[in-house]
């Protein structure tokens, strides 16, 4: 969960591992303050999300990947294809930091907008509208990539 959030957000295994290790080290220090397994889970998601976004802003590791940087798919690309998923991950990485983290938390961690709002410390309305906008953006890009409507 922790490593995976950082990995999907930063797309860099080495940095993701480093950040995940830091977070667990911090957990070691903070554990007495945490009250239940649910609290630990919430805390881990919150800290790794913020750490990843801080790292992205600080080190500017996020590369702007425009649609033009994603290879055009050959005609054999079908839904569920590993290549399409790779393209999709690249498209997600082109989103702004906060929207990208919301997408990761929503679709990797399967968190509800309210949980995402609590984790990132922003209003739930903002989460909902950003998620909606990101999906519209991604859908448009997928349509251009696949040459067919993505429902």
């Amino acid at each position, binding site marked *: 969960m922790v490593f995976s959030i950082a990995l999907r957000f930063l797309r860099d295994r080495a940095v993701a591992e480093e950040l995940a290790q830091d977070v667990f080290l911090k957990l070691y220090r903070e554990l007495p303050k945490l009250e239940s397994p649910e609290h630990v889970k919430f805390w881990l998601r919150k800290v790794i999300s913020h750490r990843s976004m801080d790292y992205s802003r600080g080190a500017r590791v996020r590369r702007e990947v425009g649609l033009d940087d994603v*290879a055009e798919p050959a005609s054999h690309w079908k839904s569920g294809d590993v290549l399409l998923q790779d393209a999709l991950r690249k498209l997600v990485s082109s989103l702004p930091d906060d929207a990208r983290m919301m997408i990761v938390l929503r679709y990797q961690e399967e968190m509800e907008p309210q949980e995402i709002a609590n984790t990132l410390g922003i209003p739930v309305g903002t989460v909902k509208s950003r998620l909606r906008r990101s999906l519209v953006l991604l859908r448009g890009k997928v349509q251009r990539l696949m040459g067919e409507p993505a429902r």
Partner: protein
Amino acid sequence: MKSTLIAFLLTIGMALTAHAQELKMPVDLDKLAAKASETTEVTLNAHMLQLAAKFMNDDEGDREARELVKKLKGIYVRSFEFDEPGAYSPSDVEGLRMQLKPPMWEKVVGVRSRRDGENAEVYFKSDSSDVIQGLVVIAADPRELTIVHIDGPLDPSDLEKLGGDFGVPRLQAPARPKAKPSAAGAQ
């Protein structure tokens, strides 16, 4: 001190040997994807091949493919199609060619056609047992570049069955062809 030095040199030596045995796709190839109008990339390691083999059933086509991929260590394909001719240069694949050297690799076929600018090379990797341990195909024409690397033991008859007619065993070199093909023994 002396033993530490020996251990160090041994480690370096082993690392270099291990490196020499691996075939690396040149980094430049990834840049070609940006220029290409269509890109096909297949990267399947032994784990993925085993996984794929599990889902191949007993239909004839699947069964033959399964028997082949079960033995393999990897399949790697990079194929680029370009809108305009000359979008890539021969040096883009030079890094790969440099690795395909004897005694490990042998160029069994080289075809060069000046008329249509099509080039194709086939390399086999062999070991002391004379079993083909790998295959590389580099096929290039002005608008398309395809590189295939199949890593692992290959039985030519498997290939022939699988592809309908791979024709590998019958690729014999003509002595002095007009279209400048060269093949085993004629390199």
